[in-house]
């Protein structure tokens, strides 16, 4: 008996709002509510609701003969709850039929499987709990973010308690093999692995409305014939699709809904295929062989690898900066920070930083809120900088609300402008604070500049300015001075007895002023 396994991915990220560097430490609201709401509402209306209704009708019509499976990310579920509760309601109704399986994944559709096993397990557990509480069933099948898979990841997934996992039937892992069989993990054969038939999946997902495609228009009859023509020994055809395929990537006008409405009828009437879900297949089918995947794969782009999310300098820096926070994030008890920690891990943030589409990829531009990967990176890093501060503050004193800017930055001189206008004193203070830096410049002056310097500045001022300084830098600087001048300087410094702070400040300012005039 041959099976068809429909699996739909539903994921929406929490898109970030424009977050400038001066918001760091000042604003703890990262997400673009307006944009997120607009996109969720649009996609729910155009895609999820009509497709859910279509599937419900099909289930009602064909009963247990028609089954599908979903994986809905936690960030999508949270946004449904926030912006479109009718979508949640509609998925619940599908769940009640018993013909729909919900898969587990990481809560925020993150890349954590590539970084840390414990956190990976924790994020999956969080998602599984959410699915169970919403739909009443604890998931037993697993689908990692964007079908990311490797032998190592599969092994961990089995250890988490899942017996079947979905991934891409990438050409380079299959070689001459067909994706249409049950396989198993190369390290732990107890984990069964279902491989996506990308040819037939993409015929629906990408090519359906492409009028320059030789097979256009694609009809349910034609697709059924293709299925029928497959080698009868094959066990299962895995059609894994983004759920937005229906109504969003392929608009209703392309006839995609009619196609899906007719397809089960055609298949059930003309072929011996049955519809099944990953859990059903895992219970029924034995693996034909192990599938060896030493290097991580995904379903993204031609390469079917991780380069959509990681690999360029920006993506790698952002990834490292994010997961440097892991120990702190695991400690925090603040629910607001915990939530943000998850949302900031969503893989889409890294996807937006991808530079591959400079040459190709219209796909990457879809729903991409940024004009360039550089902007995506800058915005994300600004948000992450703020989050870092809050997480650090939280770990230092968990009871006071975080608001301080760390020493890294100079304190925001909020009222500088008005102060300066009103009093000359304020201007002086501002200058004093920078005189230290200018003194550093003095030490790095070239020999001719030093000569010019001692000609213009009296030795007394210099003596006072370096009175409280020592170290290699000072020594190096003094080597640039003429010998007689240096001796004189030593003499004067030795004569200074407990100078007043304001005196030193006065001389330093004098020097700073001159240095500035040099540049």
């Amino acid at each position, binding site marked *: 008996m041959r099976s068809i396994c429909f699996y739909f991915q539903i994921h929406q990220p929490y898109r970030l709002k424009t977050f*400038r*560097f*001066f918001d*760091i430490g000042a604003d703890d609201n990262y997400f673009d509510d307006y944009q997120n709401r607009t996109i969720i509402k649009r996609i729910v209306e155009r895609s999820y609701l009509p497709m859910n209704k279509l599937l419900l009708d099909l289930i009602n019509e064909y009963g247990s003969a028609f089954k599908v499976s979903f994986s809905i990310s936690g960030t999508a579920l949270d946004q449904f709850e926030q912006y479109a509760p009718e979508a949640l309601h509609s998925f619940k109704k599908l769940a009640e039929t018993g013909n729909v399986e919900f898969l587990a994944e990481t809560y925020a559709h993150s890349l954590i499987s590539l970084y840390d096993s414990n956190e990976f397990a924790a994020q999956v557990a969080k998602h599984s709990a959410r699915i169970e509480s919403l739909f009443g069933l604890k998931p037993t099948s697993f689908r990692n973010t964007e079908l990311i898979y490797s032998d190592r990841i599969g092994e961990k997934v089995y250890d988490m308690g899942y017996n079947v996992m979905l991934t891409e039937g990438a050409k380079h892992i299959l070689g001459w093999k067909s994706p249409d069989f049950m396989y198993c993990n190369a390290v732990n054969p107890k984990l069964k692995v279902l491989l996506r038939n990308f040819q037939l999946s993409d015929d629906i997902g990408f090519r359906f409305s492409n009028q320059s495609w030789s097979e256009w228009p694609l009809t349910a009859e034609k697709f059924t014939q293709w299925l029928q023509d497959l080698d009868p020994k094959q066990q299962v055809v895995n059609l894994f699709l983004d759920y937005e395929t229906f109504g969003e990537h392929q608009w209703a006008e392309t006839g995609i809904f009619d196609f899906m409405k007719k397809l089960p009828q055609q298949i059930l009437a003309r072929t011996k295929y049955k519809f099944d879900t990953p859990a059903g297949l895992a219970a029924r089918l034995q693996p034909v062989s192990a599938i060896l995947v030493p290097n991580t794969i995904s379903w993204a782009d031609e390469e079917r690898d991780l380069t959509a999310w990681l690999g*360029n*300098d*920006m993506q*790698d*820096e*952002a990834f490292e900066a994010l997961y440097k926070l892991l120990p702190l994030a695991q400690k925090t008890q603040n629910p607001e920070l915990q939530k943000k920690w998850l949302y900031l891990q969503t893989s889409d943030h890294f996807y937006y930083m991808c*530079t591959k589409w*400079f040459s190709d990829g219209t796909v990457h531009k879809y729903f991409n809120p940024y*004009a*360039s990967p*550089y*902007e995506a*990176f*800058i915005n994300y*890093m*600004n948000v992450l900088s703020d989050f870092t501060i809050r997480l650090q503050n939280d770990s230092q004193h968990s009871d006071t609300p975080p608001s301080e800017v760390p020493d890294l*930055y*100079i304190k*925001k*001189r909020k009222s*500088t*402008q008005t102060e*300066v206008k009103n009093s000359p004193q304020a*201007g002086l203070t*501002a*200058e004093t604070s*920078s005189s230290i*830096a*200018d003194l*550093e*410049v003095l030490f*790095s*002056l*070239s020999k001719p500049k030093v000569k010019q310097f001692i000609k213009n500045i009296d030795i007394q001022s210099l003596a006072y300015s370096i009175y409280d300084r020592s170290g290699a830098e000072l020594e190096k600087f003094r080597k640039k001075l003429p010998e007689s001048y240096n001796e004189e300087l030593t003499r004067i410094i030795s004569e200074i007895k407990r100078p007043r702070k304001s005196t030193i400040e006065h001389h330093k300012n004098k020097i*700073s002023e001159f240095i*500035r005039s040099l*540049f």
Partner: protein
Amino acid sequence: MKVLMFGWEFPPHITGGLGTACFGMTKGLLKNKVEVLFVVPKAYGDESEEAVRLINASDVLIDIHSKENLEFWKNITYLEVNSSLVPYVGPEAFDNLVSQDIKEEYETNSSVFEAKYIFSGKYGENLLEEVARYALVGAQIAANSQFDVIHAHDWLTYAAGIAAKKASGKPLVVHMHATEFDRSGENINQRVYDIEREGMMAADRVIAVSNLTRNIVITKYGIPAEKVVAVHNAVEPVEKLDLVEYTSHVPEKIVTFLGRVTYQKGPEYFIEAAYKVLQRDNNVRFVMAGTGDLLEKMIRRVAQLRMSSKFHFTGFLKGDSVDRMFGMSDVYVMPSVSEPFGISPLEAMRSNVPVVISKQSGVAEILQHALKVDFWDIDAMADAIYALLRYKSLPAMFAKYGAKEVDNLKWENAARHIKKVYADVL
């Protein structure tokens, strides 16, 4: 194919980007098997002739008694404009080699049959006077030379182009490197505008250096869209040996503005963005290199914001100092209000300096490895600067891809488009 090209300057005697662009373009055309007869108002003798046959307009004999020339003179209005309204006013004042009354002299003295006009070739006070004389020469050269098409660069040479077209009957292509709106904002010099418009109307095709400029030409000059083609500028490749390593002598990072301190270049937005950055990050210095009519105002504004200890003005930089400035810079900002193309960010990128450029620049249309902001959006500008200073992978990305991207902007490719334009009008 042979083209008669009217320029205003040619390396090494340049005051603006026009000469450099013409040089690159002629070399690119040569690679595409197009011959160039390049006419400049005054050839010094040391111009690069590797690509072109240079004709010194001062050496052309003019038979002022020929009928066409007399008629041409009648149609010329002498225009004198205030120098501050003229583009690229160089440090040198107009070198008045031609006496003020030369025109009357030739008109009245019928005993002179042939005369040579001597051109200064400099942008200056009597610019419009020279433009008119150049036109006369243009007609003469056109009558005496063999070529297929005429190509005139910027309004200074349009009159010459028109005259050459009339004299030879060959098609005319005019090239807009900058419009009067780019130079003066909305307070345009009407006479310059008229010359530009007349040139474009008379031309068979107009080449604009960007889509931005193309739109201005169509909307503000009313030139039929089908006549206007955008061909982006390119840059001359630099021998890697020429890139000298310069290092900064201050511990802070350096953010640079380099260009004329005029309305068009948007210096005030740079200052406001600098103020925002300095409020958060003290480990940075800002440099404004260049001079112009807004310089004093800018210095006052910087003082008013009390950031003079972190914000420096260098005045006008030349040759080597420009390279040194790029070498010391960590970020280059071009906040232009209106920039037909904008070659300087490409120079910065070639020195591995990441750039922040305004979206209101032609170069933004073709660059991918640059941060682009609206010139008025000082928040975005400050954010871009801050990010480049702070997040290490950004400058790393730009160093990796920026120089490569610039190297791929070849004049040879731009010239291929230009050749296509010629073919269209033949």
